[in-house]
């Protein structure tokens, strides 16, 4: 068995003038959940299409379970399960027919690998005679995942499976992934939701075709460079605008019901309290706070833009 499930070395890809990926390199361990986190247009889909042999890179090498994604494309298609960002099953076929179709193409049967999809499929099995086009969003997602799994892939490639999905279904989907991981399947998943990073073993933060950082979520948070404080008060809109122009602060971003303020150098809580008092705010609460992946992402975006 190779050391890593997926190895990506110096992959670049352009569409005409547009550089979709620039010199991307990283490895994914066996049976881990690896998250590729970044906004639309970051290059996530391009990279996944290369990994599944659907697109050829301009330069660089990538292997999945030891197979080169260009030369050994036939093997790649056998060992990967791919769930594209857009629902790509047959609307006119029923739930059961779709699943059967994918099983047959890969020379297997639903029965043979039923254990892999059982937890997911039982939830849609009552609707197995329904056409895929008439399923709700959450059910479509479960069917797509079942179809990607039915040939018992070694590697599962999931392109934004939770985009446009509500908070409850998102949570359920990640619970399913955690269970799949126990079946010795490597999972590489992309998402624009920063809060999903903490559910991955390793994450790569990607922006404009470049990897900004790769590590465990905990280490990325640990590497956050500045002292960070959580500030809240009655007039959030004014408070935010003033803190953005606070010379002793590096950045001020809204986070739910509070503002995260990153301070320069040795400045800290006392300076924030003085500043808000000076601006006429009362009942302001200031306390130190741990960074989140979203804080890290924004700090890295700014660093990269400055370059």
């Amino acid at each position, binding site marked *: 068995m190779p050391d890593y499930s997926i190895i990506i070395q110096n992959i670049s890809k352009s569409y005409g003038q547009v550089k979709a990926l620039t010199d991307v390199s990283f490895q994914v361990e066996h049976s881990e959940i690896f998250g590729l986190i970044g906004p639309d247009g*970051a290059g996530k889909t391009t990279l996944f299409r290369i990994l599944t042999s659907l697109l050829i890179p301009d330069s660089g090498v990538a292997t999945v379970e030891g197979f080169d994604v260009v030369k050994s494309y036939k093997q790649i298609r056998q060992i990967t399960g791919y769930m594209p960002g857009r629902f790509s099953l047959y609307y006119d076929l029923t739930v059961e027919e779709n699943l059967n179709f994918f099983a047959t193409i890969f020379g297997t049967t639903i029965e043979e690998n039923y254990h892999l999809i059982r937890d997911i499929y039982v939830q849609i099995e009552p609707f197995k005679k329904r056409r895929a086009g008439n399923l709700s969003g959450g059910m479509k997602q479960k069917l797509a995942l079942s179809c990607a799994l039915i040939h018992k892939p070694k590697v599962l490639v999931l392109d934004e499976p939770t985009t446009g999905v509500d908070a409850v279904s998102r949570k359920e989907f990640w619970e399913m992934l955690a269970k799949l991981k126990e079946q010795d399947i490597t999972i590489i998943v992309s998402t624009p939701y920063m809060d999903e990073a903490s559910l991955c073993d390793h994450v790569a933060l990607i922006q404009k075709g470049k990897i900004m950082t790769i590590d465990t979520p905990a280490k990325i948070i640990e590497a956050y460079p500045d002292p960070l404080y959580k500030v809240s008060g009655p007039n959030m809109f004014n408070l935010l605008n003033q803190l953005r122009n606070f010379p002793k602060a590096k950045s001020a971003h809204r986070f*739910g019901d509070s503002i995260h303020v990153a301070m320069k150098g040795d400045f800290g809580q006392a300076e924030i309290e003085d500043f808000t008092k000076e601006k006429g705010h009362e009942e302001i609460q200031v306390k130190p706070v741990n960074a989140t992946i979203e804080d890290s992402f924004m700090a890295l975006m700014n660093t990269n833009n400055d370059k």
Partner: protein
Amino acid sequence: MTNKPIIKVENLVKKFGNFVANDHLNFEVYEGEIFGFLGANGAGKTTAIRILCGLSTPTSGNLNVAGFDIYKQTELIKRNIGYMSQKFSLYENLTLKENIRFYAGIYGLSSKEINKRMDNLLETLKIGDLRDKLIGSLPLGWKQKLAFSVAIFHRPRIVFLDEPTGGVDPITRRQFWDLIYQAANDGITIFVTTHYMDEAEYCDRVSIMVDGRIEALDTPAGLKKTYKVSNMDEVFLKLARAS
């Protein structure tokens, strides 16, 4: 924000065959308010929004949007609202200027007025140099911000935003909310849906739909207090998962 209702919904029911998509909805939205309209997939949000925009007729109920009746005055409603869908809706192969002229023209603005407002907009956003660029060539973050600016270009009284920030990077997402606050400050009522629960905190009030009904409606602080949790994510999970 005022205490004057600009949207009034009484006993809104919408059925598709035997399926009840909206089950006796009752709520009001105030002028200048940022109103978050949340719910799980399939809870009935899109159905309600289509009705409020005059695109679909309710099965029963009394509804008034921007002072107009939802049954008899849908054309007047459409003229007084703006709408931005989750799918990018500007024309990629038209320039920024052409897109603005097109949309503003549909709403019947004069050329003179369009040019005046366009100069204003480009100056405010500091993007005068993008005027003659094809929309398709602009960065994604800009596209969303421009789609919003175009949606309120005719100065509607209400703007409906359907998941406006899906897939957008975290900095652009926050800049987008700056635009929303600015518009609300200028008196435009904001009716917004989102799957980002931190954004629910940015709303003045939030309603949460579950299975066709409004299960909760309050300020974010009020909801957190009622359900004894620390953030909106937990409020949402408690309500939507209970079903």
